[in-house]
């Protein structure tokens, strides 16, 4: 199962190495990982998407991450109300004739064309992973020359609906 885990870390050299290293060591399969600054100076936030077999495995990952000295907080936000975004750049083969056709396809996705050349256009799209998969499916028939994705970044929404069985992991039992 796919889990979205965020980790707030002290922005110290080597912290990314320690975290990816422990995931390799303990055989966690990282699907995507993003890192960036937060509102607090010297503090960064990482968002991982990991594929795990069961709850015990994700609990172990969170505990191991918590053990790292430079890690301040780890949360599995999968089951919370969250805002998830990922950005993709897609270079699609297109000549002048089909350019407007593609424009029409991407419009409902609120994607935009950010680069045009004689043989291709580059589409930028933001959203959750499903949305990006959907636009990719539609563009694939035209021929995708190149595609890059940032991996997701996410955090909980401002207000949470009352969910009773949220998964809680804490170092205090």
């Amino acid at each position, binding site marked *: 199962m796919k889990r979205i885990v965020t980790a707030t*870390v002290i922005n110290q*050299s*080597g912290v990314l190495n320690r975290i990816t*290293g422990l995931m390799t060591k303990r055989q966690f399969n990282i699907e995507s990982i993003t890192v960036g600054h937060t509102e607090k100076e010297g503090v960064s936030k990482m968002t991982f998407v990991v594929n795990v077999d069961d709850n015990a495995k994700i609990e*172990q990952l969170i*505990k191991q991450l918590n053990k790292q000295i430079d890690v301040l907080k780890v949360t599995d936000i999968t089951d919370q109300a969250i805002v998830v975004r990922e950005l993709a750049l897609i270079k699609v083969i297109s000549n002048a004739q089909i350019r407007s056709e593609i424009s029409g396809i991407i419009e409902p996705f609120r994607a935009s064309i950010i680069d045009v050349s004689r043989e291709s256009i580059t589409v930028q799209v933001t959203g959750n992973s499903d949305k990006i998969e959907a636009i990719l499916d539609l563009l694939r028939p035209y021929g995708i020359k190149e595609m890059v994705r940032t991996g997701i970044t996410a955090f909980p929404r401002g207000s949470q609906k009352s969910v009773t069985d949220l998964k809680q992991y804490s170092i205090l*039992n």
Partner: protein
Amino acid sequence: MRAKAKPEAEAVTAEMTGADVLIHSLKKENVEVLFGYPGGAVLPIYDALYRSPIKHVLSKHEQGSIHAAEGYARVSGKPGVVIATSGPGATNLVTGITDAMMDSLPLVIFTGQVASTVIGTDAFQEADIMGITAPITKHNYQVRDVQDLPRIIKEAFHIATTGRPGPVLVDIPKDVANKTISPDYDSTIHLPGYQPTFSPNILQIKKLGDAVGSAKKPVILAGAGVLHANAGKELVAFSEKHSIPVINTLLGLGSYPGNHPLFLGMGGMHGTYTANMALYECDLLISIGARFDDRLTGNLDHFAIHATVAHIDVDPAEIGKNVPTQIPIVSDAREALKKLLEIESSSPETDDWRQKLTQNSENFPLWKKVSTSEFLPQRVVELVHEYTKGDAIITTDVGQHQMWAAQYYAFADANRWVTSGGLGTMGFGFPSAIGAQLAFPEQTVVSLTGDGGFQMTLQELSTLQELNLPVKVVIMNNQTLGMVRQWQEAFYEERYSQSLIPVQPDFVKLGEAYGIQSYKVTNEEEAKAVFEEAFSHRDPVLIDCRVSGKENVYPMIAPGKGLHQMIGVKP
């Protein structure tokens, strides 16, 4: 005579070099002894050391330094401090660092590094020790700014010795050690991401108290966490209060008196039948400071399957890692036991259970061959026990001799047992004996070792010679890599691939070459005479015990089998 030296490093002068700051900080941390080896990148540090009264033990290989520091830390509970140079000096520490990580030993390791300006250029003796040691340290630092040095050293000692102990490495570029500053020793530790839990959650303690009251077949599994927390007394009080039998893990030996009527012995692959059947049949398993290593549990599908599992551990990540746990308690072992003794709880009715266990120990005790013609390795351990009155510090490597030591040296007291458990490092035992002896100069320290493991770090005989410490090296020499041979016999149809080593050095001449009294004994009578002599004085001794090469360690759980599927429980 010492060459003319600069003023003593310990005096805080307005301006000091990074190296002087380091030495001064070590004094502030009450470090008594350093284990190390000099080299290019640590020349400034060794120069500062030259002006300091701190004792430095020069090993003959960095692996010797770090294993000695581990031995020191294991028996004293104080952090072992190691210094090595950059590149090969640092990489030679890797086995020891991993060993300390696996067995939770507090170490603070200082490595030299090439100058900041050339880091990343593949400079002479440069190694990415930060990258190399990230997965095998509790934490590591590279000092970029010499002003950070006092704080980093404080943090390193704090992290190494609190919570679940472990190794912390501090990498110091040569220019940082040379740079002159006015140090700020008042800088405080700032570790917002490191707040280890010390006291237990009282609700969980009460839950465990209730579980104890209603259990019929309770058992306690005590590991090294009990030793780290110095909780032996509380463990005895708790087990006696409720008449709960106790099993030790390999590393936990000594945390419970080996001669106590409630003691069932060691559990696991070569544990006692009684201990393993108790783990298999129990209805309440209270694990304290143990981490359910695979050598202890055997096949997890058969481990404590009828039991409610309570797990007390200072490291939350160990709880639920291998064994599903119903009562998790994150706490220092001593704090948890104190609280368990404080709360009101009824005692379980364990007479039937204990009677059954007693029957098991009577029917299936540890056994060994009875032989008048062969010199059995198990007898060596028993004789060492006899001649040291069971009160020596015993260090071992890994393998058959380690298991026999664990089985036959009934440890009555805590912190007498120094062995490489998690990593299983050959060559660990002898240098760790030197470290243990430095921690307790008056104690008898015996390095029980095998002929294979001893040859991995025997260069430290030179260190022993120099220090003239009364370490007794007892080689259980069966001219084989015993445990490898045993597994080849059991699982590879006796194809003894590279495990028989009949060509050996003359260990007696070898010991004598280092100026150490050395003996060879080939039977019990000779051994008794030599042990009598060797344990009566305060000089180092090497004894080459030529034991039978065909003995196997029994009983045993074959790999993949459960605790109840032991083989070799009877002759």
